[in-house]
């Protein structure tokens, strides 16, 4: 199968959807002349014009607010956040408007929109350009949150997000953009929102992960397999509301669970997953539930500190070994 990058996969998704549906438009900073800060919108301005690929002022509040308003007026817009770190600026629009409009108005409208949010560490991006904040949205009813870990899922999931009548936040790790992978040449490729995927089967322990950490989860599983552990790896894909069933099924089989994400361990999504298992499947557990995540500090600038901050493959390996 052909290989394309993660960024290209998202480009294809947008292009295919925009060709079919002219209510889709994209708004964000530096789209028109640069194709987005990571090139993930390249070519679209030429293809669809700057009426549909809109360069906005540095007004994150207005970007998300306007996209919500446009969705209420019948469009299916996409907003680009530039860096997920800037979502704090527009948190009111996200949680008090976008997430609640359908519900608090008694179902009078849909709010079909996607927020694309590039997140995660990037070489020395430092405190305000490196964060993973997906856990914030987990307790906010009315939003769906997804985070693909590879090009094929990126394409199928972005298409699903665009087609969804519910508002979707699409976290995409900045380090994934250039990674290549097989993506079927299928205009109808859809990765359903709400479903996790068992990407590797195993019997002794389950690793639940997502986004960029999937790479380390798989690396760790290979290391561990060589040492005789049979590791199952689940890619969460949809972070909120997450697919409890798939995780529970896996834990019932393996009896051990490690959750890994790049976000700070404390307060991360791992807490929710661990809690669900500790409530619904504790009797199946043969070991503590271990969470691997970044250290509890802002992201430091210096490479040595950034490296100390970052969660690593070895943390997963050691975490799992400690369970036996």
């Amino acid at each position, binding site marked *: 199968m052909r290989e394309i990058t993660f960024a290209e996969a998202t480009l294809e998704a947008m292009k295919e959807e925009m060709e079919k549906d002219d209510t889709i438009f994209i708004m964000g900073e530096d789209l028109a002349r640069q194709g987005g800060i990571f090139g993930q919108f390249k070519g679209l301005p030429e293809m669809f014009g700057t009426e549909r690929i809109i360069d906005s*002022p540095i007004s994150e509040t*207005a970007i998300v607010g306007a996209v919500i308003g446009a969705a209420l*007026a*019948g*469009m299916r817009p996409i907003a680009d956040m530039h860096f997920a770190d800037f979502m704090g600026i527009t948190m009111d629009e996200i949680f008090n*408007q976008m997430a609640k409009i359908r519900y608090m*108005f008694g179902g009078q409208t849909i709010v079909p929109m996607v927020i694309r949010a590039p997140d995660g560490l990037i070489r020395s991006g430092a405190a305000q350009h490196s964060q993973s904040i997906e856990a914030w949205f987990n307790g906010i009813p009315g939003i769906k949150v997804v985070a693909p870990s590879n090009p094929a899922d990126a394409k199928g999931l972005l298409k699903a997000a665009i087609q969804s009548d519910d508002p979707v936040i699409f976290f995409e790790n900045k380090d994934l953009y250039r990674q290549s992978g097989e993506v079927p040449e299928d205009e109808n490729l859809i990765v359903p929102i*709400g479903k996790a995927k068992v990407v590797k089967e195993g019997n002794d322990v389950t690793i639940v992960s997502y986004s960029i950490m999937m790479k380390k989860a798989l690396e760790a599983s290979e290391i561990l397999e060589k040492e005789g552990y049979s590791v199952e790896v689940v890619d969460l894909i949809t972070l909120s509301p997450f697919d409890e069933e798939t995780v529970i099924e896996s834990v019932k089989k393996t009896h051990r669970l490690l959750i890994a994400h790049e976000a700070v361990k404390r307060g991360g999504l791992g807490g929710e997953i661990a809690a669900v298992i500790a409530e619904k499947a504790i009797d199946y557990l043969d070991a503590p539930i271990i969470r691997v995540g970044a250290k509890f500090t802002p992201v430091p600038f210096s490479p040595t500190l950034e490296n100390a901050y970052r969660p690593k493959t070895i943390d997963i390996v050691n975490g799992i070994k400690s369970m036996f």
Partner: protein
Amino acid sequence: MNKELYSQFYKTMFKIRTFEKRIEEFSMKGEVPGFVHLYIGEEAIATGVCANLTKNDYIQSTHRGHGHTIAKGAKVDKMMAELFGKRTGYCKGKGGSMHIADFSVGMLGANGIVGGGFTLATGAALAEKIKGTNNVSVVFFGDGASNRGTFHEALNMASVWKLPVVFVCENNEWASTTPYLTTTSVKDISDRAVGYGIPGVIVDGNDVEKVYEESAKAIERARKGEGPSIVEMKTYRIKGHFVGDPEMYRTKDEVKERFELTDPIRRFKEKVLLEGVLSENEINKMEEEIIKEIDDAVKFAMESPFPSEEELFEDLYVD
């Protein structure tokens, strides 16, 4: 003078006033739950502005949204039921006073977040521009709301892209307990239009004809694709900030004096009677009809059932 239009003005203003008085009563009694902010004394604004709009145009409202909702054409029975928390209300009891909406007439919602509507209205205008219609979007906002960052971001965006959105300021001199001049850098909020290169006008917001005429110009400008405007309606908040407000921050006399001078309904009524546009009889008939309509709405609301507990999970996600 256009008799039909003037009758409409009177009916709408009187309907809002009557609605609000009943709501005040039920809110005091605790039968209407939650926070309630009344529009009494400001009826001319919603009435005059919305008289220029069709159902295909949008409005974004505020926490003080009953007047806008009625003026945009929503039904008082479903409104009343919503405010009572009943399942027959516009939002099935999920919204209440601060989250009343009627999407079928382009009323995109009251908002409990002060200044929350600026960017949403701008986005609705952007949608219409992309679609190529000549529909417009109007956002109502208070003097207090004009100090939110959303005001600035929305106005800049709307101006650069010449979006069909009109920013209607309801300057009632108070933001909750705070006199607006103590927190606002300009006496006339319309002065801020200069920073966006757009027109900003001041209107006597208690004169429904003036409101109608001046907002017509701004709306027309927006429809023609010439971009946004600020229309600042000078008015005064007659009632407490919310029903139950002890109003320790101003004297009863101040309020009484201002109300006597400015009451938009009384002024309009005197004028149309004096000029013979409408007769005492005609006005009485209108009033009776409206009182009956509101009475029926109250009855409908009171007789409607509360939502059942199972309805809690409805209308959250589509898929």
